[in-house]
Every structure is written in C-alpha cells, then in structure tokens.
C-alpha cells in the first residue's frame, strides 16, 4: 500500500552565501591538482575567503622542484578511456599532459606555477601539511614563496573553523 507522506513545512529562507572555504589538495597528478586550484580561485572571485591545504602528493603543486612537471596519470585512469598498457608506454603521460595543457590554455586556465601565484595573489592562503613534510623530509625551502606555513591537521581545522571544507 502506498502512503502519501505529508510534505514537511519548511519556512522559506533567504538564500545563504558561503563566506569561507578550506580546500584540501591531496593528489599530485594534473587532474588531481587543478580542481582544487580552480575552486580556490573561483571562491576568491566571488569574494569568498579561501585557505588551501596541500597534503601527500598534493604537495607537488607547491614544490619548487616539481610544480612545473605535473603530469596527467595515464595508468589507472579510466576517465581517459585509454588501454592501460598504452598508458604505460614511455612518453604517453607527457603526450596526454601536453594535449591537456594546450586545451586549458585555450580556455585561459593558467599552468600550475602561474595558477598557484594567481590564487595566492588573490588572497587565498597556502599551507603545507606537517605530517607529509616530515614524512618526505621537506622544509619551507622546498616550497614556493607563496606558502605561508607548514601546519598540522589540528591547525588546519582551526583555520577552517566557520567555513566549508572541500577535499580533493
């Protein structure tokens, strides 16, 4: 027997806006890093406060020695619709990365180094994850100058207080 549920009465509310976001970037591939940067930049463009927390291989996005060499993962990436063995051929990742970068340039998405600078200049704060920094034996010297600090998870939550957390 079907029963009609009474529609709940919800008082109409003014549409709320997000005032603050804290975005975690945890992956080191091109497709792992861009979404977080795009969301941070988009937040700032709307006047929303944004913090960025780089953890695990996401740290590659702010490492001086690596952030110019970020590649698309061509193995284990079903989104590419490409046979795994083909993706494993030397140069496949570089080729796909080159193609994707050209597409992005066409729609005015900056390369990662320029994007990190743009996001920082727009007022977003960049932080590196302390656990990962310790694990990989890194220090502030390894990071681009836009990185504010190396902070623990607890400190990240303090900074994120009152906002939305986005994990990518």
């Amino acid at each position, binding site marked *: 027997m079907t029963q009609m549920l009474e529609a709940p009465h919800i008082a109409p509310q003014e549409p709320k806006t997000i005032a603050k976001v804290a975005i975690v970037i945890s992956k080191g591939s091109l497709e792992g890093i861009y979404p977080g940067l795009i969301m941070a930049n988009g937040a700032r*463009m709307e006047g929303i406060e944004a913090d960025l927390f780089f953890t695990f291989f996401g740290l590659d996005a702010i490492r001086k020695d690596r952030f110019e060499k970020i590649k698309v993962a061509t193995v284990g990436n079903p989104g590419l619709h490409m046979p795994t063995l083909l993706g494993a051929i030397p140069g496949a990742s570089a080729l796909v990365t080159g193609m994707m970068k050209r597409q992005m340039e066409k729609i005015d998405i900056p390369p990662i180094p*320029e994007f990190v600078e743009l996001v920082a*200049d727009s007022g977003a704060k960049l932080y590196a994850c302390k656990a990962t920094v310790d694990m990989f034996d890194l220090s502030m010297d390894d990071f681009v100058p836009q990185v504010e600090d190396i902070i623990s998870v607890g400190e990240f939550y303090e900074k994120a207080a009152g906002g939305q957390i986005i994990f990518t």
Partner: protein
Amino acid sequence: MTTLEIAETTVDVDAEGFLTHPDQWNEQIAEEIARESGIPELTDRHWLVVRFMRDRYLATGTAPSIRSLGKESGVPIKELYELFPKGPAKLAAKIGGIPKPRGCI
C-alpha cells in the same frame, strides 16, 4: 526582466543587479552601483579596470578572465583584490554595466 532606477535612469537588470543592456550605462550609474557595492569612490585605478572590462566585453562579447584582467588591464592581481575585495571581475562588470561574467577562471 526587472527594471531599476539608478542615477535617475531606468535600466534593465538581472536578478543580481547586473545591467542586461550595456548601452543603458553611463558614468553616474557606475558610481551609484559602486557605492551600493561598498566602494564609496571610484579612483582612476578602479576606472582603469572597469573600462578594460567593459571595452573587452563590447569588443568580444565576453568578459575577460581574472587571468587576463591581471595580465592585460595594467592592474596586477593583488591590487585588483584591494580595489574590489568582493571579487574584481564580478564587481567591475557590475559597475561597468555589462552582464555577469560566466567563466570559471
């Protein structure tokens, strides 16, 4: 379509107050929208950005991205956010009397 009385002129606006017909715009309208958006006075630097946005929109049909705004307007990104803390591209478009930029960048 909503109409709004700004600086003694009737203009067509969208739900967020962006002009839908850029030809209805004038400098008095710009100044009034700026005041309502929390910018008490438009400086030369504000005008540089507003005019760049508007001219680019009128020439190409789309508003520039924040990236090209920072590279080509003559005002760097940091200063753009100082001038328009609530979002440079969005606010400059609103003040410049062009539709809200739809791009993600």
